[in-house]
């Protein structure tokens, strides 16, 4: 590992497709630019699915390494964003499979249940804000558990990661109508989450 994709040393490259094309030919500036564009999004996406900051950081690093290892196999540079998310989704699934396998060897008392939220405790926010965030996250987790695996993935990609229907279709390798059907079911369940909706409306400006 040599270069660090810091915020300061990144040269602006206007077009994403151009940037991807340059990164494909081994341009390290373009790679740094891609990291700067998507690192926060991918980190958040992974965090939503793991609830652990350190794991999310490690997985984000792994995602980008995999991206640059396989960038030459990407045929259409315009599809970079869904391709990136597809890699991230696969890495998260691997993570959960590995964790599930390891859980057979870890005593039940030592397991981590749900998101850690350790960084919320250490922040500068007021205790009330921290409590509200914790409560909110618990509700989100509870809602997610009510969804099927595909409903949850589709819902998260659409409303948390802000991907379009067509992009979600590419990420999950499913047809757009399948994506819409599962999204419909998830939103229908969301409408019944009165407590969660109450929290959302309570903090709205």
């Amino acid at each position, binding site marked *: 590992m040599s270069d660090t994709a810091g915020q300061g040393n990144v040269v602006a490259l206007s077009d994403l497709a151009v940037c991807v094309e340059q990164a494909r030919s081994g341009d*390290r500036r373009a790679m*740094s630019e891609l990291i700067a564009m998507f690192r926060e999004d991918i980190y958040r996406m992974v965090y939503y699915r793991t609830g652990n900051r350190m794991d999310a950081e490690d997985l984000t690093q792994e995602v980008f390494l995999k991206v640059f290892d396989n960038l030459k196999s990407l045929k259409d540079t315009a599809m970079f964003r869904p391709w990136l998310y597809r890699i991230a989704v696969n890495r998260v699934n691997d993570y959960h499979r590995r964790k599930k396998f390891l859980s057979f060897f870890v005593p039940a008392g030592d397991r981590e249940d749900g998101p850690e939220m350790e960084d919320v405790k250490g922040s500068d926010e007021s205790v009330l804000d921290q409590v509200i965030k914790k409560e909110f996250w618990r509700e989100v987790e509870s809602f997610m558990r009510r969804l099927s695996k595909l409903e949850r993935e589709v819902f998260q990609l659409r409303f948390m990661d802000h991907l379009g229907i067509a992009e979600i279709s590419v990420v999950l390798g499913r047809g757009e109508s399948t994506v*819409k059907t599962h999204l419909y079911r998830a939103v229908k369940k*969301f409408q019944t989450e009165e407590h969660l909706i109450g929290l*959302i409306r309570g903090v709205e400006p």
Partner: protein
Amino acid sequence: MKNDEHITQDELIMAVIDKTSLTPEKRDHLDACRICGSQAERLGRDLTSLGDMVKAVVPPMRTAITLPEAEVREPARPWWGMRLAYGSALAAALVVLILAVPVFRVTPDNKMEVMYQNILSDAKLMLEIDRMVEDPMPDAWAASYDESEAGEDEDSIDDIVPGGDDLS
């Protein structure tokens, strides 16, 4: 669609997910009806706010993403460099062979044995030379003479090679 008729809850969800999946008539109603419009807007806003709030909960990333190591390419060697490399490798292999195989190696321990082998080889060669001087015919010829012609009498030879009398 009648004026007092509103879109259903299912259609409302479909409108939030993908407005184009509604029929043009329903879309027109959604645009025109204040009640249906505000319901769709409300649901859309709840979902957007959910995304924003979840984003706010995520702790900031502390570590930087590092790029993979750059490939280090060695400069191309000239053609004679390759030949030199192969030649050196071959010479090294020969040296190893000579050192490894005991026949080629004369050490204080096997010096007498090597000398004895050389004397034996020389004596064998001299015997072979002496035999060739005495009997230059190949062994195969000598064998064929012994088997086919040793027992035949002089008459039979006369049949083949006529005597001096017959020529006259």
